[in-house]
């Protein structure tokens, strides 16, 4: 085994090291976040005022679609995989991921998949313009020809996710240091174990549904065509069977990160560790039986409607357990508020708000008014941006000193937090109002009635974007210079990753560490 990284660019191309691969995932994800963010800024710029000013409606739809796809599949998921790559082997006392070469393959598929997806924007007829949920028949019979490229991009992206998840499961189940029993694993590892199962269960279903699209488009099958006995709603069932678990895929690892950070800065062990594990598992289980809450208005029979409403509401219970556990962890602690903690606290508050609006959406009769309005957009940005994005940011600040050996600039971190926090609320809170007042999603133009709040939203979006550039600057300058971090970095944090030097050596544990 070589002891240091190879020189030059081939280090990154050929690497089998979990830290290298983790870093590549994280950088890739950040690039995609900026790209998805630029798409969002196009959306917000067009929506700054009523009337069409910047883009044509057809292109606007492409922006909405690409924004959703790039953020979900390009930014959030790879970021969590990146953190998993970096942290899981260190947290378990393992030498590396279980299957290092496949690990590198999982990563390298992604840049190609996204190059293929983004290249559709330049094709004749334009890129995907049917929303990130690509409902048939808009995405089949009525789609631009580039949809074929989109379909194959989804296929290989799915292959990457499946291989990544298999790797994570094998690592967690097979690579733990002696004595690291399952119930001693950090919650981040637990949440990822469960997330990986979700991924393996639903990514193939996504592959299945895009395959059906491909067949309907090119081979004349009738999956989604009533004339031949199919049903456009079938598409939605299959899509959401994937899609709903997918949204938990984007939040469970976040729960893990926050569960690592809050105890550290409250200086108190995590409250209710085992109930956290069970709650995560319950959420995962429930996530398979709630999908049709996205389809309350498609005309399901009332029994189905009721079933999916009740099942969806149930998710509030295990999620509540988590929120209560975090709050109780803080209670009677000795708290300090470094940047990772600020992001984590904001996570708990804002995610809960997003969860509340989710619960309102779950009430089927009320969803008849909310569905496909900006109220839904507000809901999911509250769970995704201060949820997924904030937790990732918190994790980056928390572990960055361990990764590169340097301490980030705390003042800048705090300023960035406040900018992001304000920007985010200014952007997304007013969306609740315009949604309730009747503004539908996925439109480039609207009545003046909604003008004020849209303008506020747009200004918030640019503020939030600026905050992200600040994060980029802070991270780069920490890596380049910055004062040396201690091995423990924080005050008596829990976990094996803090027992190794900062920066963590290229190969962490060639022999398993002792576990208390």
């Amino acid at each position, binding site marked *: 085994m070589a002891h240091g990284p190879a020189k030059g660019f081939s280090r990154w191309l050929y690497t089998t090291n979990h830290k290298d691969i983790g870093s590549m995932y994280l950088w890739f994800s950040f690039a995609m976040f900026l790209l998805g963010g630029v798409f969002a800024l196009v959306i917000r710029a067009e929506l700054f005022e009523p009337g069409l000013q910047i883009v044509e409606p057809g292109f606007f739809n492409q922006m909405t679609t690409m924004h959703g796809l790039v953020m979900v599949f390009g930014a959030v998921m790879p970021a969590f995989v990146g953190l998993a790559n970096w942290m899981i082997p260190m947290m378990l006392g393992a030498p590396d991921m279980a299957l290092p070469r496949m690990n590198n393959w999982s990563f390298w598929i992604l840049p*190609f998949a996204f*190059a293929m997806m983004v290249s559709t924007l330049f094709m004749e007829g334009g890129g995907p313009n049917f929303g990130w949920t690509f409902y048939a028949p808009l995405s089949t019979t009525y789609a631009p020809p580039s949809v074929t490229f989109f*379909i194959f991009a989804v296929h290989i992206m799915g292959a990457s996710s499946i291989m990544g998840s298999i790797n994570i499961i094998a690592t967690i189940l097979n690579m733990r240091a002696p004595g690291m029993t399952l119930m001693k694993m950090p919650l981040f590892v637990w949440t990822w174990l469960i997330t990986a199962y979700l991924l393996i269960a639903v990514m193939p279903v996504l*592959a*299945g549904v895009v395959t059906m699209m491909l067949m309907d488009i090119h081979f004349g099958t009738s*999956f989604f065509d*009533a004339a031949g006995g199919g049903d456009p709603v079938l598409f939605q*069932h299959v899509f959401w069977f994937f899609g709903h678990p997918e949204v938990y895929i984007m939040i469970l690892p976040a729960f893990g990160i926050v569960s690592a950070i809050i105890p550290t800065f409250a200086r108190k062990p995590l409250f209710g560790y085992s109930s956290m594990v069970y709650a995560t598992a319950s959420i995962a289980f429930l996530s398979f039986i709630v999908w049709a809450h996205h389809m309350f208005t498609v005309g399901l029979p009332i029994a189905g409607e009721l079933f999916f409403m009740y099942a969806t509401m149930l998710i509030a219970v295990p999620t509540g357990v988590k929120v209560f556990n975090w709050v109780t962890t803080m209670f009677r602690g000795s708290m300090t508020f470094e940047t990772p903690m600020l992001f984590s606290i904001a996570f708990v508050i804002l995610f809960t708000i997003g969860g509340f609006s989710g619960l309102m959406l779950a009430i089927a009769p009320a969803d008849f008014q909310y569905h496909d309005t900006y109220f839904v957009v507000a809901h999911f940005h509250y769970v995704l941006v201060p949820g997924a994005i904030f937790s990732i940011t918190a994790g980056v600040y928390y572990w960055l000193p361990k990764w590169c050996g340097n301490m980030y600039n705390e003042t800048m971190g705090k300023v960035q937090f406040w900018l992001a926090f304000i920007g985010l609320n200014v952007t997304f809170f007013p969306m609740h109002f315009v949604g309730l007042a009747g503004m539908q999603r996925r439109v480039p133009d609207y009545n003046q009635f909604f003008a004020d709040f849209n303008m506020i939203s747009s200004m918030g979006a640019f503020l939030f974007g600026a905050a992200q550039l600040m994060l980029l600057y802070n991270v780069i300058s920490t890596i380049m210079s910055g004062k040396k971090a201690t091995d423990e970095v924080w005050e008596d944090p829990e976990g094996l990753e803090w027992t190794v030097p900062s920066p963590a050596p290229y190969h962490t544990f060639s022999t398993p560490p002792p576990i208390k």
Partner: protein
Amino acid sequence: MSGEGTYYVPEQSKLPIFASIGLFITVYGAAGWLNGGTPTLFTVGFIMFAMVLWSWFSIVIKENLAGLNDAQLKRSYVWAMGWFIFSEVMFFAAFFGALYYMRNISLPELGGDNTTNEILWSGFKEVWPLMVTPDMAANGTSATVVGPDINMSVTTADSIFTWLPFWNTAVLLTSSFTVHFAHTALKNNNKKGFNLWLGITVALGIIFLFLQAAEYIHAYAENLKIHHGAYGTTFFMLTGFHGLHVTMGTFMLLVMWLRSVLKGHFSHEDCFGFEAASWYWHFVDVVWVGLFIFVYILG
């Protein structure tokens, strides 16, 4: 997980990046081809991808023979194969789900006693196998989505022995036993028996594929095609994807057989490559049983 020596973390490898490029060219080429282009790019990519995978597997085999793989790593492979098969199960689940949905939800709605039928598809009756599509029932000769002329269901009980799917089932089920016998032979250190039983399994796989091809030719000749409404759709998609998996499974077993016959690989304690292929084979078999019941018998 007691101290089992050091886990084998491979050196740098060019395989992943080349595999990614190969895969990328394959799918990019496929998309271009489907959109009216030529198959050239697809072919180039596919060959490249296949070559990379070939050398990837060769390297893994060499490492194993060189004794680099400890028991722990082998367990990783076991987990990986297991969960890969699970992902395949979910992939098929999507298609079985579609079949279920069409037969039990969408067709009854289209052909039921309700406003959908009354206003949009009057005259359509839901009968499975679906020979008359809603389009045909409602729009007569100007229909664009027409049904097939024949279906593959068994007509009478005594014609079952001349019914091809029956023989396909027999062939595939038998092959599940023979692959198991091969495994038992290997466990008993009986390499000859192993080669024999495995060879028979491969042969059965190939026979199955021939029969399947014959069925397709018959179907197309008698005007049962993939674009013939819900029946054509589900019939060809389910059997087609299964057929693709049988092809892959047969290929895997063939490679294992060649490794054993030509190179003398596999011993009773080191045979995971074969075991993985055989699990895959059992999985393909189970899927067929599902197909046989839901596509053919209840068809």
